[in-house]
């Protein structure tokens, strides 16, 4: 069953048409990666899906209802958004940050209930962030902070998680750790995961389906095997490279002009 249904979606920033005629569905409990070159409209699409932007035409349905028809609090019960990690201005603790997801559920005096605290604690445990729950959010590393942001999204207790480049500034260890965590949430908690990423090799290991957006309005949607074909990648990203396979994992390595093994390079 599809939980997100996008049909004939168009969007433009004043003169700039970013998306036109985009249609796809996301099945409940599946893991979708959105990839594509800069300016293809990945983040725009994410903002449309989370209701922060309004579609020019076409429709986005979450659980069979238009995304714009939800009140803010109702939509927040369906979709949680994880943005790229950043250091906030004021020094909230990790636990305080995660508890923010429960603010719409607070009592009239503005304090969390026992249940809110339990939900936050479970989110901390799931993301392996309990050990620095009392630390300030600015005092932990970028990878840890990204996990805290995911913990907050989990504490929102939604069926869908949207992530905008969750691993962009992280080292290899933390990249893998974030994707492991997301996959675990998909398997154990039946979450639907939609992640925008530039790291197609890592995403290919974890996701079920790929939506590849091109810059001129074309797009490819399907399984990793179908969409991440070397020809498609080379065309959409305008690169040449080497594609290979190790065991079950496919990978694509872009090769620049000065690469020693660039195809067609005479040595």
């Amino acid at each position, binding site marked *: 069953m599809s939980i997100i249904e996008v049909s004939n979606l168009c969007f433009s920033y004043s003169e700039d048409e970013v998306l036109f005629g985009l249609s796809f569905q996301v099945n409940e409990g599946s893991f979708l990666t959105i990839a594509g070159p800069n300016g293809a409209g990945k983040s725009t699409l994410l903002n449309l899906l989370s209701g922060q932007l309004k579609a020019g035409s076409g429709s986005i349905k979450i659980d069979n209802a238009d995304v714009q028809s939800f009140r803010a609090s109702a939509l927040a019960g369906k979709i949680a958004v994880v943005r790229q990690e950043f250091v*906030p201005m004021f020094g909230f603790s990790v636990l*305080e940050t995660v508890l*923010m997801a429960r603010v*719409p559920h607070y009592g009239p*005096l503005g*304090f969390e209930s026992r249940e809110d605290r339990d939900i936050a604690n479970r989110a901390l445990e799931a993301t392996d962030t309990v050990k620095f729950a009392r630390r300030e959010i600015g005092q932990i590393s970028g990878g840890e902070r990204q996990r805290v942001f995911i913990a907050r999204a989990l504490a929102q207790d939604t069926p869908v998680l949207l992530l905008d480049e969750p691993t962009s500034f992280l080292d290899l260890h933390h990249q893998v750790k974030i994707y492991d965590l997301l996959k675990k949430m998909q398997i154990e908690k039946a979450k639907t995961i939609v992640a925008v990423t530039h790291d197609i090799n890592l995403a290919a290991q974890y996701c079920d389906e790929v939506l590849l957006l091109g810059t001129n309005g074309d797009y490819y949607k399907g399984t990793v095997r179908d969409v991440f074909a070397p020809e498609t990648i080379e065309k959409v990203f305008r690169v040449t490279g080497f594609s290979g396979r190790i065991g079950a994992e496919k990978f694509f390595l872009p090769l620049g002009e000065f690469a020693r093994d660039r195809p067609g390079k005479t040595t």
Partner: protein
Amino acid sequence: MGTNKLLTGKRLAGRVAFLLVLLVAVMFVCSLLGAESVSFKKVFSSTGSADVINPDYEIFIQVRIPRIVLAAIVGAALACSGAVFQGLLRNPLADPYILGISSGAGLGAIIAVISGFNWTLWGRSPVAVFAFAGAIGTVWLVWLIGRLAGRSNVTGLLLAGVVVNAFFSAVIMFLTSVAKSDQVHSTIFWLMGNITEEEWLVLWLSVGCVTAGVVALFYISPQLNVISFAEDDARSIGINTIAVETIAFAVAAAITAVAVSLSGLVGFVGLIVPHGVRLLFGPDHRQLLPVSAITGAIFLVVCDTAARIVVAPAQLPVGVVTAIVGGPFFLILLIKHARKVGRLVK
């Protein structure tokens, strides 16, 4: 310190109660200090006989107490709204005057002084009434321009505030340069922030307004926490950011306008008190707002007492004292918590 333990209702109530007791104690002590020495015993010794004037009673009830209450209201309003503006704009340099309230109120005040009006409205002088109107009008104007400018809400507002501030300040300078010298003197006192005696009716009304404002802001403080973290996140967490921001701006501006119309432009309180409270107690607005309000009240009562007695029998504008006392005090806090503040201002 404050960030290590999660805030509970009980803990918050305890701290607020303690600070309220401290505030009352400070107000009591300050009411006994002054150019004329007043003995607390004498104040209430002969109130029964109406025909005998008891100077201690007169000074205490008609002069000292009203002025101290006034300082407390102004301090509470400025500190609380400063904390709100810093959080809303996610900008540690923000203060209650950042959106042009000060210049709007200043312009209103100087127009009232120059035109030499001579009437009162509910016990308020034309200067106070014009300053209040100028403050509210300017915030409304800045809010409107910020909205029309579109972009990210915060950048538009800040830019509109800066430009309106600069423009009105220029008009103030112009009017000052064409005004008569006695008018200039009273205007400058007003612009520096000056607390004087007020009637009890005015005081009670102001106490009511400011208290209601602080309570209203406390009511939306969990939402302010998320907005001070990031506006986008607040929206996707399910907070109606437009409603919360509008209420917060309106209430913070209103209590600032009340404060400004009472005392002129008292600087520094709205900037340093919220920072000091944040350094000691953490950034949670549920605690930051009430604690800032009470601490701001204590701070301004002390500063105004100093303004009364340092050069007695003459008096200083309290704004001079807040800057002279507050500046170094804040720097000490800053150095002590250098690492924390480094991140705060990044």
